[in-house]
């Protein structure tokens, strides 16, 4: 059955959305070796015929207890290094990222004129299919089903600062107040706990905002990045998809809450 957008979820005709990432992290299958990455690519190659290699992403786990300071990472070099692979569509707008413990699906705007955001419902349907394909592949190697231990959704926005619809960061984002100063640079990061209806923590939303430049045009933009990350209720694909849907609702709702009425007019809010 085709997925439909939840009613009453904030919606914009021209949102400053530049990239969306859906991702899961799973226990590395014990018999997986990097040489199998080519066979994994074959699962998706018809739609993603190009490939690049990147450094692997470190594991990420959201845990809850006392308020904590900056986190520190744990790294062990023990045995061959595993890479992260990007399987890209011809036009580069969509890509799958794969490493021994992660699968992610990105959409990127890249060229404003040519790219239309496919919408979350389309992306999550594709991602669910991709997860099932990967699970079937691992089971064929004699591995257990995917044991998913974290899920995440990220929405990255590029808010134009110049031109007729340009907005300064403090004009666009209610969290920011420069007190009348014209900021040349800033970097704001904070995290907020997301609780279940019963009051227990289920995820964390990470907010990040800063001033930067678009790589292709050099025009200044304000980045506003929202990520929801946490453990799904169970470690199967269905639970992961449910988490991603919850994460998307939270991000879209919070995006509308933390941005200004003026920005909503520029982006033509519909709902």
């Amino acid at each position: 059955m085709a997925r439909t957008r939840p009613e009453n979820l904030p919606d914009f005709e021209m949102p400053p959305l530049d990239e969306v990432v859906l991702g899961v992290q799973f226990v590395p299958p014990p018999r997986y070796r990097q040489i199998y990455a080519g066979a994994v690519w074959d699962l998706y190659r018809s739609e993603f015929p190009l490939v690049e290699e990147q450094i692997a992403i470190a594991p990420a786990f959201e845990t809850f207890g006392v308020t904590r300071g900056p986190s520190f990472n744990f790294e062990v070099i023990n045995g061959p290094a595993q890479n992260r692979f990007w399987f890209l569509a011809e036009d580069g707008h969509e890509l799958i990222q794969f490493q021994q413990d992660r699968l992610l699906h990105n959409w990127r705007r890249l060229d404003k004129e040519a790219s239309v955001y496919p919408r979350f419902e389309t992306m999550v349907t594709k991602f669910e299919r991709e997860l099932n394909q990967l699970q079937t592949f691992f089971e064929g190697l004699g591995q257990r089903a995917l044991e998913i231990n974290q899920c995440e959704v990220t929405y990255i926005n590029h808010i134009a600062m110049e031109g007729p619809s340009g907005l300064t960061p403090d004009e666009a984002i209610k969290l920011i107040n420069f007190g009348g100063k014209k900021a040349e640079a800033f970097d704001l990061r904070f995290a907020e706990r997301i609780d279940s209806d019963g009051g227990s923590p289920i995820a964390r939303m990470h907010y990040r905002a800063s001033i930067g430049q678009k790589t292709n045009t050099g025009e200044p933009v304000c980045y506003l990045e929202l990520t929801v990350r946490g453990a799904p209720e169970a470690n199967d694909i269905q639970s992961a998809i449910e988490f991603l849907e919850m994460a998307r609702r939270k991000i879209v709702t919070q995006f509308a809450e933390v941005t200004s009425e003026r920005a909503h007019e520029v982006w033509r809010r519909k709902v």
Partner: protein
Amino acid sequence: MTQVRRYDTGTTVVSLRDHRDARRGLSDNARLSFERRDPEWKNVVMRRLAELVALNRGWDGFDAPPVEFHNAYFSVQMLQSICSVETPAPAIVPGYYGDLQVEWHSAGTHIELHVKGPNRVEAWRSTDETGVEGEEIDLSTDFTIVAKWLADLTRAFRDDDRARA
């Protein structure tokens, strides 16, 4: 006269008040600041986990695998959620299936956290109040209760140190 302010994060800032002797040769806004103090347990834990992840298969004399990397990584995140700067470093022992156990033992209190996998922890504590049977809880990602257990244990350690001093 110098004023020393210590923040919860362990950062110490020393500011020099408007005092002639203290300010000699220094600007009006002179301050010294020290880097955030890393918790002592951090280096102990990192070293130990690196050892356990690098164990050879059969380290137990049979066929036990090394501690799984995801389990070690999750343990670090868990410890960040429950330990303060003053928490004593735990002992960490490997399990037989790539799992591990994080433990604190004092005269009156024992805390053991069995990390069976990411998001799967069996937490157990015994105190003078609970007796040797102790209390056990299965936890996933919320370790608030264990943070309270550790705060009690850390306080007891600190009180013991002061009594001996």
